[in-house]
């Protein structure tokens, strides 16, 4: 390590507090939020003590009653998923998904860098409740600082008797092993995560089984949970399921972390009330993003990570509630909102996502491996003014080999476009293939005239296009 004279490495910035009750970000205001001292001084490891006084089943029931929806993208209730472990099959494992790499997503890294003990306590609670005998905390490879903070926190927690053998003098014993990746987006998919953890190429496994809870790591029952999901557990155990469900709505209780990036006045990471907060509150609220930059018009936004079909201002009043967002043609995904103002070159913006998914294809399924590459090449041609009208049809035809049938999209009443509900059919093992098509389909459905201008030769190269030409 160099002498500490030079410019130090900055720790994760970006969190902006608002009026929302703070469940997972409660300690973020402290300079030393990542230390064991601060954690212990702010209720830390009290939930673990409380849990150990109950039976595992009681703790599991508390989490089930809280309807804690998974925060990794699919939104499946954690307490229900935990129940999918087949009885009598041992050992069972916990794999923590800290691979955060969906375009636009930025929250798990904050939780790992700024409050690693909260995550560790969450892991311990999950292991206790479900009988998981070893935990692997898989952090994305490109997150050196998060790895350092979690490693330090684990060393301190072991030293203080919170992790390892006979935790707090009880019979409960579990090791938490820090594991880290090496750069591959698809490894965030839970079965690919397990393959990677077994030392293999990180390719998703064929489904069924649909949940690694039945067959996972080394073929054993395995719970895979997202970092933010687990970070909620200490609060839930400490304050009870009733306190959790008192926030938000019945079907989407609690809070959730969202990252808003792109053309807003205050891009940042916000903890918001689940289920009731609307996209308008988030993008225009004075305690949140404060509107579009330069008071420009909003053109479109991606509501749930790069894989999600796009919304327009017509969908601004939808709340963070899956049962309302799905019928309108998209998903809440990983809480990543990317905002495009009126100045945005839409076909080029779509290309910045399509090239991502084409690049990240693991190559296991032909429609994704070949189709993604073709979509990128055709779109690049169009964006750079070398395309033809036929290319616009070709984009749809290639997309249909990955996702046959109608693709979900948002309603645009003034264009007479009706919403097609999420999800879609697909010919691939995982969502990477469809995700290469999603931005193209949204952009073409909502802003076809911009593509037509490109192929008519009325548009030249843009800055965004330069970014993706590298």
């Amino acid at each position: 390590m160099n002498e500490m004279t030079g410019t130090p490495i900055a720790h994760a910035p970006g969190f902006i507090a608002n009026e929302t009750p703070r469940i997972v970000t409660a300690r973020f205001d402290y300079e030393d939020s990542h230390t064991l001292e601060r954690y212990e001084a702010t209720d830390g490891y009290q939930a673990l003590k409380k849990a150990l006084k109950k039976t595992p089943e009681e703790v599991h029931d508390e989490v089930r009653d809280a309807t804690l929806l998974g925060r990794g993208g699919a939104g499946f209730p954690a307490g229900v998923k935990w129940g999918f472990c087949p009885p009598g099959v041992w050992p069972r494992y916990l794999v923590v998904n800290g691979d955060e790499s969906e375009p636009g997503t930025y929250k798990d890294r904050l939780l790992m860098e700024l409050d690693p003990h909260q995550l560790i306590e969450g892991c311990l609670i999950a292991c206790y409740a479900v009988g998981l005998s070893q935990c692997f905390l898989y952090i994305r490879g490109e997150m050196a600082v998060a790895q350092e903070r979690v490693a330090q926190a684990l060393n301190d927690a072991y030293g203080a008797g919170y992790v390892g053998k006979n935790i707090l003098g009880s019979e409960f014993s579990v090791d938490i092993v820090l594991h880290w990746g090496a750069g591959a987006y698809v490894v965030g998919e839970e079965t690919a995560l397990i393959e990677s953890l077994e030392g293999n190429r990180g390719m998703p496994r064929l489904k069924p089984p649909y949940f690694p809870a039945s067959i996972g790591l080394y073929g054993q029952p395995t719970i895979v949970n997202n970092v933010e999901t687990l970070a909620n557990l200490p609060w839930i155990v400490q304050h009870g399921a009733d306190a959790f469900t008192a926030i938000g709505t019945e079907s989407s209780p609690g809070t959730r972390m969202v990252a808003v990036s792109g053309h807003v006045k205050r891009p940042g990471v916000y903890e918001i009330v689940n289920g009731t907060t609307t996209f308008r509150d988030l993008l225009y609220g004075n305690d949140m993003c404060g509107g579009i930059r330069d008071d420009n018009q909003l053109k479109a936004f991606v509501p749930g990570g790069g894989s999600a079909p796009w919304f327009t201002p017509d969908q601004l009043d939808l709340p963070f509630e899956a049962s309302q967002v799905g019928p309108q043609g998209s998903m809440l995904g990983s809480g990543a909102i990317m905002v495009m103002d009126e100045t945005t070159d839409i076909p080029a913006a779509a290309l910045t996502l399509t090239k991502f998914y084409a690049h990240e294809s693991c190559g296991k399924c032909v429609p994704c491996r070949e189709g993604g590459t073709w979509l990128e090449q055709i779109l690049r041609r169009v964006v750079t003014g070398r395309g033809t009208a036929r290319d616009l049809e070709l984009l749809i035809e290639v997309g249909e080999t990955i996702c046959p049938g109608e693709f979900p999209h948002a309603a645009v009443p003034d264009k007479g476009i009706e919403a097609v509900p999420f999800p879609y059919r697909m010919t691939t093992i995982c969502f990477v293939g469809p995700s290469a098509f999603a931005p193209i389909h949204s952009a073409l459905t909502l802003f076809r005239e911009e593509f037509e201008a490109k192929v008519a030769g009325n548009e030249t190269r843009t800055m965004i296009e330069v970014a993706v030409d590298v």
Partner: protein
Amino acid sequence: MTFFTDENLALAEEIIGRYPKPRSAMIPLLHLAQEQEGWVTDDAMTQIGELVGTTSAEVLGTCSFYEMFKRHPVGKYVINICTTMSCALMGAGDLMKHAESRLNVKSGSTTPDGLFTLEGAECQAACTEAPCLQVNYRHQYRVTTDQFDELIDELALSDHDVPDHGVLSQIRQHIPEDRSVGAVPPEDVKVAPVWFSEDGGS
């Protein structure tokens, strides 16, 4: 094959010991090799294969899947400029163009002095702080072209707290022996953990 230093070999064995199956240590060991040498050499893969009980071809199979493992020497500082949507919307294109001209290399190549490798990269989970980049996987946020120049000057003078390429986490996990539960091959576990009653189980 002896690739690892004695110290790293001891570390490698400690890491392997944490997993129910040795092969799970593959990626951490590849990182350790890259830390020692700056990139992953054939000798490193042969020894990793021996350590985890597989062939060097299997190690290469895993190694070649992951972007971060370099199979050839790279710069002391690998600079990754994010070019995914949020950063592209906020000027990553300008930043990349500027970086190419400042370093006088195309994205994907290394400066002749071996100091810098410039790469276009995908979303770095810092989208609200766009445009961003990473130096050896440490973030720089909302980077202007002036700040980019300053950063390059600092790095060239080693006046920055960034370790050389290959060094990832500078803090290692260490499980004290008296606190460790220990990893057991899954086939050797037949019953529920003692603290978990099977009838009360889920």
